[in-house]
């Protein structure tokens, strides 16, 4: 089992950014970075510590997706972890769906987002990478390990800091 730990101050910063309106994109996306540690035979953790917003100019108009971003923004995200390849760095694409309760990846998400993962795995082969989807009060995650690039795992998300929540 992989558990993603997200400090509440970083979570607040992410939510604030993702909720900002964009000129034409219907939703915003970003990248959140962390470190991976395999603790025991049945539990590993991803420790998130940094968020990078996708710049306004890096969104591209696309009728099929609520938010489409250019390749430069993805390369920038990969560079963050590539510079420290010796570390078990992690990259997660993150976005929100505008409702309360447990979210689920849309068909567009399932088609459009997993192709990001191979590049992440190449950039930081010692870490795990994936996708995080937030709602107003919940979240889910899918994680890909370098050892199983075709088999994503569902992961729990733990908010920790000013308050504590487990989303599993």
């Amino acid at each position: 089992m992989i558990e993603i730990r997200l400090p509440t101050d970083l979570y607040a910063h992410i939510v604030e950014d993702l909720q900002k309106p964009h000129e034409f994109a219907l939703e915003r996306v970003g990248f959140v970075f962390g470190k991976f540690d395999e603790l025991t035979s049945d539990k590993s953790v991803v420790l998130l510590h940094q968020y990078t917003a996708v710049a306004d100019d890096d969104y591209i108009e696309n009728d099929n997706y609520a938010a489409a971003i250019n390749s430069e923004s993805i390369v920038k995200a990969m560079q963050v972890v590539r510079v420290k390849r010796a570390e078990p760095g992690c990259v997660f694409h993150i976005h929100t769906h505008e409702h309360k309760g447990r979210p689920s990846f849309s068909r567009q998400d399932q088609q459009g987002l997993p192709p990001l993962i191979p590049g992440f795995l190449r950039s930081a082969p010692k870490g795990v990478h994936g996708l995080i989807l937030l709602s107003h009060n919940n979240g889910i995650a899918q994680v890909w390990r370098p050892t199983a690039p075709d088999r994503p795992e569902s992961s729990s998300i733990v908010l920790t800091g000013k308050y504590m929540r487990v989303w599993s």
Partner: protein
Amino acid sequence: MMSEDNVANRFDRQKFLGGNAQEQITAFTVGVVGLGGGGSHLIQQLAHVGFQHYVLYDFDTVSFTNLNRLVGATVEDAEKKEKKVKVAERLIKGLQPNAIIRSHQSRWQDEPEDLKTCQLIFGALDTYLGRKELEECSRRYLMTLVDIGMDVHTGQDGIPIIGGQAIISAPGGLCMRCMGFLTDEKLAQEQALYGGIGSRPQVVWSNGVLASTAISMAMNLISGWTGAAEQSLYLIYDGNRMTVKPNRAVYSIQEPCSHFPPEAVGPVIL
């Protein structure tokens, strides 16, 4: 055996915590480091509240001098020199028969991996150095630490003075150094006394107050039941006046923690 009705009803009296609070309590893994006077009270309350996943650390065994305060320990335990982790397990299992417990009769530093699987850690340690090391680990693994401790010293007029604290050190927040609880001076003084500290006075009622305070703080973190915008991070126990009050000096600290930068997480890569 508890009937199904009894199982379903057993948390009725704490429903005010919120709709999914019990579900949240069940989801967390709690660590308790130090299972003496303070830690045994913590264990008892965590089990009553309904936590199901535990990681426990204490290298020690029960002695007769523990029996004035070690919740759950018996005369037979002292005679048998029972492991404190076994007493804690028995206490938990008596209330939560299905609880999953990983116990270590060791220092946490010797077998740290299980500790890092916790999201919430309670520290009931005797030393400043022990607290410093536990906080360093908790910050690297984005775990929230709730520390308790008490001390008895003699005042100028010869009257014993009981003091103590319950402190939350959470990722992104102030640490025990920021709050002025851990200082180089205290650590140096402790190091100078190394081996000569002797057995410290401890009493069951003070440990009980501090453990209850710590559980109260943790339950608010998990459920938010008080509705307070800001959680008290540092509560001071005055055992002579029998009060628990916030350390007001902490409220005036405006700067973020500089001791644990956000990127300093995970294993240390040398």
